[in-house]
Structure formats: structure tokens, C-alpha cells
């Protein structure tokens, strides 16, 4: 016979009497409830803030480190490698063909990263499978030409001072969407300090509103 059934047989009046909220002696139960509430609130809130991002994003390393600073010093600017094609489309990350304008399968320097590049990719005629921090979802159309040539913007406004980096930071991939953490921004609350901290639609809209007076229409980007 279970405890519940036992209770039913013995009569439950006693329990009811002791458990009434009107009894000032029973405030301890409520106090414990408040403590439980506070603890659960804190644990969940802190988990949502601190632990959730760690679970949401997986960290991936780039195929090898890329030293932007060194390359900018060598070639002088961003546009040598990330250029607009004649038809206005943006080349994005340089293909192996572009790299081979300077590189060969003999490393030019002595870093182990360049050795990987030469051995694994140049020699094997493979494209480097870079993980693109700024890759937007496929339902978004974005014209670099309109922003660079039309609006006269520079690369840093959206991409930050990546040209000054000497190593490639880990790529954090959203396990649900498959896109980079850079789109939402490092800050899980979506708070940004710099224009390049986030690349969400609202960030586009804020700048468009400021620069053109209106946010723009849906179909301008969502073709």
C-alpha cells in the first residue's frame, strides 16, 4: 500500500489543518519558496547569460593562421585581395588563383602556417576552406559595390580592424543556424560598442536610417 493511500485511510484532516496559509507559524514554507525562486532565477539567468552562449556556439579553428597585418604591409591595402570585379560583384575571399599571383608552393617566409598553406593547398591545388566570419544567410542580398563605391564607405565600418590582426581567431559557429557568431555579435545581449560589432538586419537599418533617412524596403536585401 502506498503512502498516499495510507494517508487517505488515516484521514487527511490533520495535514490540511497544518498546511493552511492563514497560520502565521507556517511562513517558513513561503520563505523557502522565495529562496528557491531566487536561487533558480539566479542559476537560470546566469546560465542563460554565461553558459548558453558556450553551448550555442561551437568553436572551429581556421585551416591555418592568417596574418592580415603582414599581408597588408606587403600589398598595401585590402582591395588587392578583396576586390570588386568588373561587373560590380565582390570577389570576397581570394581564390587560390589570387594567392598564386604572389605565392608558389615554396614558402616565402618561415612561419609554420605558410608551410601548411604551401604543402596542403598550393601543392595539392586545393582551395583553402576558410571559415567566413561575415557570411550572411543566403536569403540576404548585399552589394559591396553600392556601399564602397556608392556610399564611399571603408572596410573597417563593417568588418572592423581585421587588417591589423596577426592571427586568425577561432570561428564560432551557431549550432542552430550554422552561421558565424560575428553576425549576432560577441555580446549575447546584442549590445555593441563599435559599428562592426554586429551585422544583423537592425544594424543595417540603423545606418541606413542615419545616412539615407529611411531604413529601406524588404526587397532591397531579401530578393
Amino acid at each position, binding site marked *: 500500500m502506498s503512502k498516499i493511500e495510507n494517508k487517505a485511510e488515516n484521514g487527511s484532516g490533520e495535514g490540511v489543518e497544518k498546511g493552511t496559509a492563514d497560520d502565521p507559524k507556517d511562513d517558513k514554507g513561503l520563505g*523557502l519558496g522565495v529562496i*528557491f525562486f531566487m536561487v533558480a532565477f539566479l542559476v*537560470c*539567468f546566469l546560465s*542563460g547569460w554565461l553558459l548558453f552562449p558556450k553551448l*550555442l556556439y561551437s568553436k572551429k579553428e581556421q585551416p591555418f593562421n592568417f596574418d592580415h597585418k603582414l599581408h597588408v604591409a606587403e600589398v598595401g591595402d585590402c582591395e588587392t585581395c578583396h576586390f570588386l570585379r568588373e561587373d560590380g560583384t565582390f570577389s*570576397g575571399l581570394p581564390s587560390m588563383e589570387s594567392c598564386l599571383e604572389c605565392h608558389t608552393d615554396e614558402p616565402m617566409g618561415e612561419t609554420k602556417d605558410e608551410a601548411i598553406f604551401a604543402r596542403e593547398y598550393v601543392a595539392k591545388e586545393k582551395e583553402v576552406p576558410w571559415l567566413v566570419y561575415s557570411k550572411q544567410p543566403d536569403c540576404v542580398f548585399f552589394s559591396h559595390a553600392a556601399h564602397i563605391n556608392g556610399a564611399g564607405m571603408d572596410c573597417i565600418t563593417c568588418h572592423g580592424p581585421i587588417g591589423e590582426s596577426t592571427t586568425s581567431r577561432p570561428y564560432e559557429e*551557431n549550432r*542552430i543556424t550554422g552561421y558565424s557568431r560575428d553576425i549576432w555579435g560577441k555580446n549575447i545581449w546584442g549590445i555593441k560598442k563599435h559599428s562592426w560589432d554586429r551585422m544583423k538586419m537592425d544594424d543595417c537599418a540603423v545606418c541606413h536610417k542615419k545616412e539615407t533617412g529611411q531604413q529601406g524596403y524588404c526587397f532591397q536585401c531579401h530578393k
Partner: protein
Amino acid sequence: MKVDRRSFLGLGLGAVAGVVVSPVGLKLTDDSSIWTQNWPWTPVPVDGEVSYDSSVCNLCPGNCGISVRKIADRPVKIEGLAGYPINDGGACLHGIAGLQYLYDPARVKTPLIKKGDKFEKISWEDAITLVAGKLANIRKGGAPQKLACITDKTQGSVPKLFDRFLTAFGSPNLYTMPSLESCLELTAQTLHGNGNTLGFDLENSDFILSFGAGLIEGWGSPVSCFKANASRKKRGAKLYQIEPRLSNTAACADKWIPIKPGTEADLALGICAVMIKNNQFNSSTFKDGFNRFAIMVRNKYAPAKVAGICGIKVADIEKIAGQFVMAKRPLAIPGRGRGRNGQSLKEFAAVHTLNCLVGNLNQRGGAFVMAKNDYLSFPEAILDGVAEVGAGQEKLAGSVDEFVTKLNAAGKPIVDALFVYNANPCYSLNEPKRVKQAFKKVPFVVSFSSFLDETAMEADVILPMNTFLERTEDVPSQAGLTKNVVGLIRPVLKPVFDTKDPGDALIFLARALGGSIAQNFDWETYADCLGDVTAGIWDSLSENGHVLVPPKPFKEFFEGPPDVDFTFLATNPSTVQAQGDFGLTLIPIDNMRLLGAMPADSPFAIKTVSDKVLIGKDIVVEINPQTARGLKDGGDALLTTPVGAARVKVNFNEGIMPGVLGMVRGLGHTFDNKFVSNKGVNVNDLIGPQIESGSGLDAAFGIKAKISKV
């Protein structure tokens, strides 16, 4: 302190509140919305540099120039090539959907060999060794003429290589599928002598008398015809369309003249009779038989008689003749529908005779008698003893239809091996079941095909071919054009599957056979061969993608009008009649949205077909309400002909003559392609061949039929 219900309630509420005020909710909502808008399993085309390749479309004989848009070297779109002499930027729906053929479910991806009822994969080396072994045995038997071949056309280096292969092998048995081009060549040969073909200057004519030619239904070079038709209003040119049904061409013509099916030749000769009676003709170039012809048409094709045969008024015949004669640049064009299937030499000759009588030959806006293309110069064929024996043999038949009939009639195999290249006779010839029977009587059939279509299914070995987007080939313009353009098909991507250019497959096979056959194919690759045999124009062809031959205006090129020989028509060859005794006549309808046989339609093209043609999987038959007693518009019916029967839907159409049933051509494929096959009925299944005496052509314009409610 005691942990009770309220404690747990506090715990739960605290957890919920903690999660709600944390970023989890907002972030997960955002992420899930992104996820649902970008399903990870939906393929997304790769991004990359945009480039354009120029080539030539080979889906029909039109041979339009195309520009293929590529992203990161992957073709993504086909457009018409601006400035190309045939289509100048225009493209038809089949051309723009051409990329679908690359990934067609019915593509043959690797060489196949039939084991029992199934095909098994085999390597190219093994397939070629097998075919070469079988062919070598035929030669050992001393009867090399027992190898036959069916191709789609005669012009261009690839058909010439098949011809060369058969010559070197020792067989005269090369047959081509019926086409507008072969009908025009035959007509030119009959009226103007060997080595000629005909072209029609549609874009400069001011009065086009079309005997059923579907100018906007795929006749000739479709895009070129669209343009010529579209410019008529601006030029003030008139179009009179003579056919039993109000086709799209008839609908946009200045006048539709409905006549009974199969009486086009009679009407043309009736108009000739009127012109001769009124002495309205130019006889300066008439060579032989004109007097006999004039007497014949006066006796046999007097307007009163013709009016009865065709079902039109005598006054109309005289009026048409008058307008044709009075026009500044009149032009009569033959070839019902696409001008491909079921055509008659008598009809072609009779219609073209109108051009000869009116004196528009080699005149602006008229009919052009042109020398056939001769830009190819192959080294002289080397024949060994066996080939010499075969070379002395007679061809088994005059046409592919006659060839099929003879295969069926023979008790034991009269052919030991058969090649089929780029043709689908088991679908597109009339009564395909007899073609399949004939194929079964051939011990060894080799199909050179890109698709596992009805004919490839009948083969013992399939050698898979590159599609027009993956291969190199020269394609001379034909299709009734007055321009002589040689286009160059260039590969716009590497072959998607383990397929080859037809020329390379033949070189491979010749090499495996060895001896004199290999000597005739002494090229490393087909590309080398093409450079060699087109040496005179290769530089320009490879640089510009096409060559206009001759580049000069026609007046400087043609030396006066050619001679006309009337002896064929003077004998009044008999007109083919529809087979059977039923009360109605079923005619096939050519529709621009359906390519027909080779290749079958793309999934895109099938989707564009109207519900007046195909409803779900049911084909729609057109019938005039006057003839449709007992039937219901949109209802089901059983259509019966002497050859077969089919369940159809009925469409009441006042635009078709009473007594005539119209069924579209190009549906009812049966091979394994879920997008294209098992939709409607193949009209050829319902029509039996009617071989025209003299030409050997299957001239069945239709068949007698009955229709009843089910």
C-alpha cells in the same frame, strides 16, 4: 524548514523568470527564424565570378547562338547570343531550359550493356572492345553491308564521320531521320538537280503563302522564324496560312484558309493551274517537262476540281493565285507543322513550283536554291578488300521508314548490327511498335545517346554521349534559312558524367578495329579531326564561334536563277491518302512547347504546356463541335484508328475543321523520366506509315479515326 509544494513552485517560477530575463529567449527566437528561412538541406548555388561562354544550341535544327552565363565556372543560365546571324539574341523556351538536360534523370552516365532485360555498367574500354569484336566478326563474314546506321542528319562533321565509318567498314546502309532539311534537299534535287537545297527569305518577303508551315510552331529555325513573323506588321508583309486547323501561326496570319488534311499538294497544283491558265508565270529558267506539267495541271487540277478536293471555293483559289502573282516579293513555303514528320515530296515539289512559276528564285524575299554546304574536306577514304565488296552493294532502302519495313518483313536478319546516333526512331517514327519489333530482329544494336530514351532502351550497348553543352561540334545552318552559317558548339563545362563526344567515340572504335578503318580515323581526338576537316574556315570558326559562308550579299553570290525541271510533277505522282475507313481524320499537331523526339522535352518545357493540350496525365484531342455528336466538352473519350486506340480528353474547338481531330505531337514518352514521361499519348502510336512511292518518305499526314464517349 520543510521543502513543500510551494518551494518547488518557487523553484519553477524562478527558473522561468531567470530564463525569460536572460538572452536565451530572444536569441533562440532569432536563430530559429534564421534556421527556418535557410533550411540547411536546401542546396544553395555557390557564389563566384560571373563569366559568359558563347556556343550554339543543338536541341533542334535551328542552331541558334547562345550565351551561357556561368558563376564560378558553373553554367547557370542560357540566353540568346546577341549579334549571332541566325537568332541575334533571341532564344526559345527549349534553349533557355537547356541546362536541365545536363542533369536529366534519363541521362546515360556511363557505358551500359544489356544483360537480360537490364542494363549493367561497363567501362568505355570494355564497351569499345565488345563492339569492335562484334563488328570484326561481321567483316570476317564478308558481308560488311550488314552494318547499318541511323543518324539524325547528314550535314556537319559528326554525321560525316558516321558516314565515313560505314564507308570504311564497307556498308552503304546509312539512314537519316525524317527532317525538314532532308525534304528540302530532296525537293531541290528533284526540281533543280543534285547537290542543292532550299532556303526561304521570310524576312524580306511581302506575301508568304504558307502551306501549313508552323512559322511560330517550330518550323525551320524557330527563333529566326519568330523574328521574321514579328517584323511582318512593320514591313507590311502578308501571311496566308493554309491548314485544317487554326494554329497559332494561322491565328496571327492575315488570312487562315482551312483545307481538308492532306490536300495541300492539290491546292498548290490548283494555284499553278490558275497561274498557267492566266499566263502569269516566268518561264525563262524552265528546263524540262514544263509543257507536260502545264497540260497535266490543266487536266487534273482545274480549280473546280481542286475546290472539291480541298473543301474551299473556286473563287478563293483564283483569288489566292491572283494575290500571289501580284505581290512584289511572293513566297510559298511547304512543310506542315515543323516540316519534319509525315511530309510528302509531291507536296513540297508542288508548293515550291509556285515559287518557280512566279519567278522568285534567288530573288530578295524569294526562295533560294543553294549549293549544299561543302566546307568540310575529309581525306579520301581508304577501302580495304572487304569494304570494296560492301561498297558495291545496293542500299537496302530509300528511307529510314522503308528500312524499318524491310527489317520487319525479312524472315532472318538482313542487318547484323545497327548504330543509332542522336535519333529516337522507336518514339518518333509512325507506329513505333513496328520499329521496336524491327530493332528486335537486329542481333546487335549500339546506341550513341545521351539519354536512356525509347530507342536506347532497345539497344544492346549504349555509348553515352556528351550533351551539346559538354561537346565540340560544327553545326551548319540549314532549316530553310537563306543564310549559310557554320556554328561551333563549344563545351561550356567538363562532362558531368563518364560521357564522350560522338567523334571521339568513333575514333576510339575505329582504332580498336584497326586496319584500314583505323587509317581512316587517324586523329588523336575529334577536336584534332575538326580542325583538320574544317581547315579552310577553322581559324575564323574557332575565333568567332561561327562563320558566315559566303560573307557577301546574295546578289553578288548567286549567278542568276537556277534551272527548273518539271519531269517529276509532270507525271502527277499519286497523293498519299489517310489510312483506314473511319469517318474522321486524326492529324498530329506540332506545338512550339514540345520538342518531340530528340531530345525529349525538358521538365521546364513540359510545365509550360497548356491545359488545352494536357490535363494532368491525359492528352486532349481537339474536335469541332459540329463533329462531336455524343461527346462532352472536357469529357473522356476513346479515340480509335486502324493502328491503335487511346483514352483521351475532348476539347471542343471551332478552330479545327469539321471531320478533323487534332492531337499534339511530343507527349507520351515511356522511358524513365518522372518529369517528362507517362504524360498523354504518343500520337505516332496511333498513326501508321504511308510510304510515298518515288520518294520513299513516310508521307502519312494523318489517319482515319473514330471517337466515342466512354
